[in-house]
C-alpha cells in the first residue's frame, strides 16, 4: 500500500510540518481538497447564521406595527444578513467548489500556489471572525438628531448601514461607534482572501492543465472559474481603495465622501458599485458552471453549444464591468450616464439569454434523469429566468425609479441569488457529494429538500414583487396596519420558515449519508468529465498518473462511441477499462510528489485581525503584534524549503 514519507532534506531554519491526521494536519494543509472542504463547512455555517438573521427579520415583518426587533436591531440584522450571505456564504461556497474541483477537472495535482491557497482560506476565517466579533465588542451609537434608542442591545451593535454602506449614512457622524468600522475593515480583510485566490486560479488554469487539456476542452465549470477570477482580480482593488477611504474618513478625519470637507458621497457609490456589479456576476457564474456540468450528465447529452456558453460567460463578465451605475439611477447621476448604463444593462441580457437557450437545448430531446442534482439545476433555470426578467425591467430608467428601494428589487436579487446561485450550489453539492465522500446521499430526502425549498422559496420571494410595486419600502423595520401589506408579508414570513425546514432536511441528509450512506463508486452518474475517472473519495494524489486528454468530455468518450445518428453506444471494453482505471487510481505505480504542508499561511493570516483591531481601538501594541505576525509569516514562507512529501509507490503490480 502507499505510504507517505517525510521530507528528507531540512535545509533551513524552519522544518515543514508533516502530520497527516488530526487537527494540526488540517491547520497546516495546503491540499486543495482539504481547503475546499474547510471552505465548504465554514461557508455553510455562515449560511445558517445569515439564514437566522433573515428569519429574525421575517418575524419582525410578519405582522404590522411589530416590535420583535427594535429599529437598531433590524438595521443590524439586514446589514449582516446581506453581508454574511454575499461575503461569508456564497463566495466561500463557490471557493469551496473551485478549490476542490479545479485541479481535478484539469487533471492537475494541486493549484499553482498551494500555500497561497491556504492563505486565502485562513484570511477568510479570520476576516469572518473579525466581522462577527462586532456582536461582542462593537458599538452602534445614535446619530445626532436621529431616531434610535439610547441603549443599543448586543444584537443591534453590528454594522447597520446596509451591505453597501452608503455615505454619508455610514460615516462617523451618522453611524457613530465602531460597528461600521468592523464592517469596512472586515470586508477589507475578506477582499484580500478572494483577490489572492483569483491569482492562484488564473495561473493554475493557464499553466497546470494536464496533457491534451486544451482550453477549449476544459469543462464549463473550469471556464466559469476562470471568468470569476478575472472579475475578482479587477474589481476587488477598487473596493479596497474605497474601503480605505471609508476607514480614513471615519478614523483619521479625512473627508473623501463628506461634503463638509469638499468630498463627494456619490463617489462612494461609483467605487462601491464598480466592484459591486462584477461581484454579482462573481456570485452567479459558478452556479452557471455547475449547472452546465449537471444538465448534460442527467440529460445523457453533450452540452448544447459549448463554445457559445464559454464565450457568453466571458461576455457577461466583460459587459458586467460596464453596467455598475444602474444601481445609481436614483442618485442624481447625469442623464447621459443614465441612458448609457440603461443601454448596457439591457445588452447584458443577451449573453445571459444565450446561455439559457443553450441549457434548454441541452435538455431538449435528452433522456432526463430526475435525480436531486437535476431537479436543482432545472429549478435554477426557472428561478434564474424570473430573476433575470425582473432585472431587465430595472434597466428601464423611469421604471427603475419606481422600483428602486422597494421590495421589488429584493424579489429580483433573491430570485437570481437564491433561486439562481443557491439552487445551482445545491445542485453541485448533491452532484459531487459521492466524489468527495465516497458515499451516496439519500435520494428521497434530497427530493424532499428540493420541493420544500422550491415551495418555501417562491412563497417567500414571489409576493415581494407585488409588495414592492404596492409600495413596501426596503430596509424599514416596521410597516403600519393601514398600508394593507400585512397579509402577504405574513405569507412571506411563513415561506421563510419553510426554507429553513428544507435546510434542516438537507443537513440531516448530509450527516446521515456521510456516515451511513451506501458506497458510491467512482462514477455513479456515468458522467462526462475527468474528475469522475478517479476513485471516490478522491485520493490525496488525485490522479495516480497524469491523464492524457483527447477531446472535450474526454471521460465520456473513453466509455462511449457514437452510432450513425450521434447516439451514445457503450464501448464493449468500457466496463473492463473502468475496472482497470479504478485499480490504477488507488495504486499509483510511481513516486508522487505533493506540496508540503506549512504553518505560515495561518500565521500570516492571523496578523490581519490584529491590524484591524489596532485601527479601531488606536492601539499601537496591537498593530505591532499584527505587523510582526505578518512579517514572521512572510519571512518564514519565503525561506522554508520547497521539497515535497513523497508518496512511495505501491508494492503490488
Amino acid at each position, binding site marked *: 500500500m502507499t505510504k507517505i514519507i517525510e521530507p528528507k532534506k531540512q535545509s533551513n531554519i524552519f522544518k515543514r510540518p508533516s502530520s497527516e491526521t488530526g487537527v494540526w494536519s488540517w491547520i497546516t494543509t495546503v491540499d486543495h481538497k482539504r481547503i475546499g472542504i474547510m471552505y465548504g463547512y465554514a461557508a455553510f455555517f455562515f449560511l445558517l447564521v445569515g439564514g437566522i438573521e433573515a428569519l429574525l427579520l421575517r418575524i419582525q415583518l410578519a405582522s404590522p406595527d411589530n416590535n420583535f426587533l427594535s429599529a437598531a436591531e433590524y438595521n443590524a440584522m439586514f446589514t449582516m444578513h446581506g453581508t454574511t450571505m454575499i461575503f461569508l456564504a456564497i463566495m466561500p461556497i463557490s471557493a469551496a467548489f473551485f478549490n476542490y474541483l479545479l485541479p481535478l477537472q484539469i487533471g492537475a495535482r494541486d493549484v499553482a500556489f498551494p500555500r497561497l491557497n491556504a492563505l486565502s482560506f485562513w484570511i477568510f476565517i479570520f476576516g469572518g471572525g473579525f466581522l462577527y466579533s462586532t456582536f461582542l465588542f462593537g458599538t452602534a451609537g445614535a446619530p445626532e438628531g436621529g431616531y434610535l434608542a439610547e441603549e443599543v442591545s448586543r444584537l443591534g451593535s453590528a454594522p447597520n448601514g446596509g451591505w453597501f454602506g452608503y455615505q454619508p449614512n455610514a460615516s462617523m457622524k451618522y453611524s457613530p461607534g465602531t460597528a461600521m468600522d468592523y464592517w469596512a475593515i472586515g470586508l477589507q480583510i475578506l477582499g484580500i482572501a478572494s483577490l489572492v485566490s483569483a491569482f492562484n486560479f488564473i495561473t493554475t488554469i493557464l499553466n497546470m492543465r494536464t496533457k491534451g487539456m486544451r482550453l477549449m476542452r476544459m469543462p464549463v465549470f473550469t471556464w466559469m472559474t476562470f471568468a470569476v477570477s478575472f472579475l475578482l482580480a479587477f474589481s476587488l482593488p477598487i473596493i479596497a481603495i474605497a474601503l480605505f477611504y471609508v476607514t480614513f474618513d471615519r478614523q483619521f478625519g479625512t473627508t473623501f465622501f463628506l461634503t463638509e470637507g469638499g468630498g463627494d458621497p*456619490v463617489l462612494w457609490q461609483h*467605487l462601491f458599485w464598480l466592484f459591486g456589479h462584477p461581484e454579482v456576476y462573481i456570485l452567479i457564474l459558478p452556479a452557471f458552471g455547475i449547472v452546465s456540468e449537471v444538465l448534460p450528465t442527467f440529460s445523457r447529452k453533450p452540452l448544447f453549444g459549448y463554445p457559445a456558453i464559454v464565450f457568453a460567460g466571458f461576455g457577461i463578465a466583460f459587459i458586467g464591468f460596464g453596467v455598475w451605475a444602474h444601481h445609481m439611477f436614483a442618485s442624481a447621476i447625469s442623464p447621459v*450616464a443614465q441612458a448609457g448604463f440603461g443601454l448596457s444593462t439591457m445588452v447584458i441580457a443577451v449573453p445571459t439569454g444565450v446561455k439559457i437557450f443553450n441549457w434548454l437545448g441541452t435538455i431538449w430531446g435528452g433522456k432526463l434523469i430526475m435525480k436531486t442534482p437535476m431537479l436543482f439545476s432545472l429549478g435554477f433555470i426557472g428561478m434564474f429566468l424570473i430573476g433575470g426578467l425582473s432585472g431587465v425591467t430595472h434597466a428601464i430608467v423611469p421604471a427603475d425609479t419606481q422600483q428602486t428601494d422597494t421590495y421589488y428589487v429584493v424579489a429580483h436579487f433573491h430570485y437570481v441569488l437564491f433561486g439562481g446561485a443557491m439552487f445551482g450550489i445545491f445542485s453541485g453539492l448533491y452532484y459531487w457529494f459521492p466524489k468527495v465522500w465516497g458515499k451516496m446521499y439519500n435520494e428521497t430526502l434530497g427530493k424532499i429538500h428540493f420541493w420544500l425549498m422550491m415551495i418555501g422559496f417562491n412563497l417567500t420571494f414571489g409576493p415581494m414583487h407585488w409588495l414592492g410595486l404596492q409600495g413596501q419600502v426596503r430596509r424599514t423595520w416596521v410597516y403600519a396596519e393601514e398600508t394593507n401589506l400585512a397579509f402577504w408579508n405574513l405569507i412571506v414570513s411563513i415561506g421563510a420558515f419553510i426554507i429553513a425546514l428544507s435546510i434542516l432536511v438537507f443537513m440531516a441528509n448530509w450527516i446521515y449519508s456521510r456516515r451511513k450512506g451506501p458506497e458510491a463508486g467512482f462514477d455513479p452518474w456515468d458522467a462526462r468529465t475527468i474528475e469522475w475517472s478517479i476513485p471516490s473519495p478522491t485520493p490525496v494524489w488525485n490522479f495516480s498518473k497524469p491523464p492524457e486528454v483527447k477531446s472535450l468530455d474526454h471521460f465520456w468518450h473513453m466509455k462511449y462511441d457514437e452510432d450513425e445518428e450521434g447516439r451514445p453506444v457503450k464501448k464493449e471494453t468500457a466496463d473492463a477499462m473502468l475496472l482497470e482505471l479504478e485499480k490504477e487510481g488507488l495504486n499509483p505505480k510511481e513516486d508522487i510528489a505533493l506540496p508540503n504542508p506549512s504553518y505560515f499561511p495561518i500565521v500570516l493570516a492571523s496578523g490581519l485581525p490584529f491590524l484591524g483591531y489596532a485601527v479601531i481601538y488606536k492601539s499601537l501594541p496591537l498593530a505591532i503584534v499584527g505587523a510582526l505576525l505578518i512579517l514572521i509569516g512572510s519571512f518564514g514562507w519565503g525561506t522554508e524549503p520547497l521539497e515535497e512529501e513523497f508518496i512511495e509507490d505501491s508494492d503490488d503490480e
Partner: protein
Amino acid sequence: MTVDHKPHPKPVQYVQIALVLGVLTAVEVVLYYTEDTVGVFTNPLLIILAVGKFVIVVGWFMHLKFEDPLINKFFTGGMILALILFAIVMFERAAANFI
C-alpha cells in the same frame, strides 16, 4: 519548470535607456516652469512625456517587449479596463457637478 531565456538588452543599453528617462524627466520639469510660454500645450505634452517614460520602463526594464504576448495582454487589458472605467467615472462626476 518552464524557464524562459528571452533576449535582453546589455548593461550599456540599459544605461542609455536610463539616460533617456533622465532627459525626459528634465524636459518635464522645464515644461512646468515654461508653462506660460507653452500655454495650452503644456498638459498634453506632460502627459505624452509621462506615457513615454511609462512605456519605456514597462517595455524594456520590465521586459514586456520581449515577453510572451500573453503577459502583454494581461497588462494592457488591465490598463485599458482601468482607463475606460475611470474615464467614465470622471466624466460622470464632472457632468453631474457642472451641468
